[in-house]
């Protein structure tokens, strides 16, 4: 026993190192579950507050006010567009009732932290649960799709951006309607890759890529980018399409968060069908 204690005291530096290093690596590996504890992410009140006051102090005073109003107004107008309403006024449903209720709601939020230079990029927004945001909501800007809300606290939320190798988005070719999965593979922040488009589809450089609307997160036909380069390897049945993203992640300031009040209903129904 005594010799064990003597051994520990003698090698305490190495033992402590191994211990701390293991704890750190455990953090890295359990990253996702730890992320969920909002405390340690940048939607935390302290870090979020710091980022917000920093971003506020770097912004021109007047510009901020005007931008904010414009973004609010945009969100309001967008939620008045015909596309935001459920198109279900069939011949037997001419009466205006609860079925023709609004399908998507847009809320403006400000980006207070942003990165483009890592493999897993996240954004922080200045709105949270108190403003009606929820996890898994889609985030777009005036130019196109930005990402999906991941963690949420009372006043802040973090967003997985498309520039995150952990995120895949269902996307389709606007012209032909073939759909596949859009993902980013690290590297340049202006380009992502669209896969799973079958080789019999016609793909031209310059074709628009939009959201498919098959997930309950984004409405359909929201711009993602355009085709930059098409490659079809010998013997493969799917294209590898390089997509130039329409959003410039370097200068995001205001975004809109898409709420989908009927999402629960859709998911429930899909779940039920799968279980049968």
């Amino acid at each position, binding site marked *: 026993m005594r010799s064990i204690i003597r051994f520990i005291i003698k090698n*305490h*530096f*190495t033992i*402590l*190192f191994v211990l*701390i*290093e293991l*704890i*750190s*690596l*455990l*953090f*890295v*590996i359990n*990253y996702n579950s*730890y*992320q969920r504890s909002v405390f*340690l*992410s*940048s939607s*935390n009140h302290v*870090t979020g507050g710091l980022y917000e006051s*920093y971003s506020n102090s770097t912004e021109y005073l007047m510009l901020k006010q005007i931008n904010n109003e414009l973004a609010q107004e945009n969100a309001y107008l967008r939620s008045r567009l015909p596309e935001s309403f459920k198109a279900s006024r069939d011949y037997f449903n001419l009466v205006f009732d609860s079925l023709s209720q609004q399908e998507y709601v847009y809320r403006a939020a400000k980006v207070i932290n942003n*990165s*483009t*230079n*890592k*493999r*897993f990029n*996240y954004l922080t927004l200045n709105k949270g649960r108190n403003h009606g945001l929820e996890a898994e909501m889609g985030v777009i800007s005036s130019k196109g799709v930005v990402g999906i809300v991941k963690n949420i606290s009372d006043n802040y939320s*973090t967003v997985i951006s498309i520039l995150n190798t952990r995120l895949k988005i269902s996307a389709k070719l606007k012209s032909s309607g073939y759909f596949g999965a859009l993902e980013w593979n690290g*590297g*340049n922040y202006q380009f992502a890759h669209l896969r799973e488009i079958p080789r019999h589809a016609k793909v031209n450089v310059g074709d628009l890529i939009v959201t498919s609307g098959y997930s309950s997160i984004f409405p359909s036909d929201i711009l993602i980018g355009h085709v930059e380069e098409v490659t079809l390897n010998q013997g493969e049945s799917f294209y590898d399409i390089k997509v130039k993203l329409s959003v410039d992640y370097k200068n995001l300031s205001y975004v809109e968060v898409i709420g989908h009040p009927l999402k629960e209903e859709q998911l429930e129904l899909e779940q039920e069908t799968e279980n049968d």
Partner: protein
Amino acid sequence: MINLLPRYIFNFFFLTLIQVLVLNNIQFSGFVNPYLYVLFIITLPFETPGWLLLVLAFASGFSIDIFSNTLGMHASATVLMAFFRPTILRAFAPRDDYQPGTIPTMAYYGPSWFLRYALILVFIHHLSLFFIEVFSITHFFSTLWRVLASSVFTMILIFLSQLFGRSKTKGR
């Protein structure tokens, strides 16, 4: 020894803030990123006990992690770097050993000694950080290139910051 305490507390917060608010936003030709906050561990006094070194390394790496959503990555890289520090200090010791009352900065031991010492630690840190971040060896050479480029960038910043420190210590 005890009068160094406020200086290191200031260093800790200052370097963390600079890293989080300024350097994390720098992008030089794609994804080269300097990590100046390791300077805190590099310049700790020679007499710092081993356990304190590791705990401080963990604390500084972890605070960077919380701000950049990379839980554990910076902490493990910084702790690894701190683990190698005593060995490297012993290997680089001058013939008459380190003078009592001095700290490992350029002001005391000159640019050639300091830059060699710092470069090895920075390289260890960046190597482990970037490989943990990628978590595979499939992109070995592109990752290695990032490690080298970022190390050079960090070393330039460390050199510049030491030039500042130099005039300060002379005035004292």
